[in-house]
């Protein structure tokens, strides 16, 4: 029997559903995650199912107590997630777009991230903050960032960014079962992509990188949507006889240093592909890792293919320019091979 295919969106929905069935302490909340809260009209229930329909249908199975629409009040409900996590629950809170971190950052970086440490290890915060990243929707500067590196900077937080439906489900289940706060970054452009996803629940551990392509000539470390773009570039390079080793950095904190170093030892060349802005980024962090742990293996300068250091623009040709493309990866690889 062929493996079942599911969208990235469907995989996340299924992970939430299965974990909510398994563990009564798991609940979800966020803005319009069902929609029309408080309306008695059954036609209105689940009016949206989430702004991008990721949580669709959950309210029908679990009810409004555990599928909790919030007012637009990110500081209060993200903080409520922290408080609920500190007092025995496993909240999965949706921050609609990662740019909205600006209005709630204190609750994430000063409360969630630091409580366990400040309290001498006597608190645990099993909180998941699901958020969306990524340009490509003509949604402009405040709804399109991929600024996960902000969270990677803070000790106490874990950060993941799955690239495939399989990893989206398995990583989300791991994040929900994890006893530390996890920022779970979903790329909007990937929601309709499909891939094999087992029906049963399963976990993908927080930490190890994925390895979607084996090659001996150049290492390409990519994150989230950049993985598929890197694989597209790798196919084109293969036609020229250049075999790329693609590392899917699906976990940003903790991260898999050994997978990166091991690949560089094998290939001697490194290209990092990241949709985030380049300064103090995952791309620069990977480059620093290579410089400190694998310089002796590098035969060429590290190449960083990232978004430019600008906000995400609106107009289609501007936004298309902003997002890193396979052409740039191919060009960068050719420059060092």
């Amino acid at each position: 029997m062929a493996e079942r295919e599911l969208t990235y969106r469907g995989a996340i929905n299924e992970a939430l559903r299965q974990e909510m069935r398994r563990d009564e302490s798991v609940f979800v909340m966020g803005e319009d995650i069902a929609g029309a809260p408080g309306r008695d009209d059954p036609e209105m229930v689940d009016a949206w199912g989430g702004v991008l329909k990721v949580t669709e249908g959950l309210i029908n199975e679990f009810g409004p107590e555990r599928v909790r629409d919030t007012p637009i009040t990110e500081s209060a409900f993200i903080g409520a997630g922290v408080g609920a996590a500190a007092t025995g629950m496993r909240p999965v809170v949706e921050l609609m777009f990662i740019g909205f971190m600006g209005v709630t950052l204190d609750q994430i970086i000063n409360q969630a991230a630091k409580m366990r440490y400040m309290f001498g290890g006597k608190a645990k915060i099993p909180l998941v903050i699901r958020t969306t990243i990524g340009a490509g929707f003509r949604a402009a500067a405040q709804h399109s960032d991929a600024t996960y590196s902000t969270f990677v900077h803070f000790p106490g937080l874990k950060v993941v960014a799955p690239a495939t439906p399989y990893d989206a489900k398995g990583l989300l289940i791991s994040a929900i079962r994890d006893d530390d706060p996890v920022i779970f970054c979903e790329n909007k452009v990937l929601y309709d992509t499909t891939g094999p996803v087992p029906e049963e629940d399963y976990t993908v551990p927080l930490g190890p990188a994925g390895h979607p392509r084996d090659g001996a000539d150049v290492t390409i470390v990519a994150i989230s949507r950049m993985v598929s773009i890197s694989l597209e570039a790798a196919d084109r390079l293969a036609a020229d006889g250049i075999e790329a080793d693609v590392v899917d950095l699906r976990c940003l904190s903790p991260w898999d240093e050994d997978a990166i170093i091991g690949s560089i030892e094998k290939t001697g060349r490194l290209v990092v592909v990241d949709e985030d802005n380049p300064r103090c980024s995952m791309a620069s962090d990977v480059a620093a890792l290579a410089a400190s742990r694998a310089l002796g293996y590098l035969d060429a300068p590290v190449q960083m293919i990232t978004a430019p250091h600008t906000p995400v623009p609106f107009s289609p040709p501007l936004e298309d320019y902003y997002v890193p493309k396979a052409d740039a990866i191919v060009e960068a690889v050719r420059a060092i091979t």
Partner: protein
Amino acid sequence: MDLDRDKLLWIYRRMRQIREFENRLHEDFAAGLIPGFVHLYAGEEAIAVGVCAHLDDDDFITSTHRGHGHCIAKGVEINGMMAEIRGKAAGCCKGKGGSMHIADVDRGMLGANGIVGGGPPLACGAGLSGRIRGSRQATACFFGDGGSNQGTTAESLNLAAVWKLPVVFICENNRYAETTSTDYSIGGPDIAGRGTAFGMPGIVVDGQDVFAVYEAAGEAFRRARDGEGPTLLECQTYRYFGHFEGDEIKYRTRDEEAHYRARDCLEHFRSVVLDGELLEAEELDAIDREAETAIVDAVAFAESSPLPDPTECLDDVYVAY
């Protein structure tokens, strides 16, 4: 008033412990024995104790940078607190939090907080947590007049109101946010009215009168536990010391300080229970001596505790990483 003898004694004991604890820190800070910063609660004891008198061990509180009184009222062990404030390994947070992050989650004390307005969202979460479990747990959210002006506080008042969360918001209005008086910083006639605006009772309470606090908090927690939603109590009070120790307090007059010290909550309690013949002076005096001894013991405990091993810096960031 439903205060039996045991409860009256409990209230006085806790208020006196807080006063002794803070007075001792005032002296020890001046003597250079305390690293960092401490914000003392002396003068405000009636609020923490009058509120926490309604709480069980499995209820929750969120606190502020001025959190020692909340800890003691909620039942956190004072030996561990004193060691924490000295930065010692035996501190209740192993010396990692200090005065500004002192906490004991096992006692439902979700932390002092170095961020003004940091606590109210957490209190909503603690309230939500009990609510989803179907328990009767309630949460007390302490914040100050300074915190009342933070957006997080307004957001949390609204969220608790629309979800009818079992949270009691207690604004400890001690008239000064650092150097800034409420005359300057508060729009509108009072802070309590902001509760009314969000659809909950907003009540001004004399924060120097523990009986008034106890009574107002009693009704607020009854509402909370019965599913009727939150209440905002604005308890008007005064801090005896500066914003933090070392503050020269150039922003208020000595006359004003004398006026409020003349309305001391411990003296008020004594006069009420002695005039009403509810308790004997001797038993109150015995509690005074007991509190003095307890604080001396706590200091001895803290001083005898070793400093943390420097590499302890690296632990407790994550449960697992």
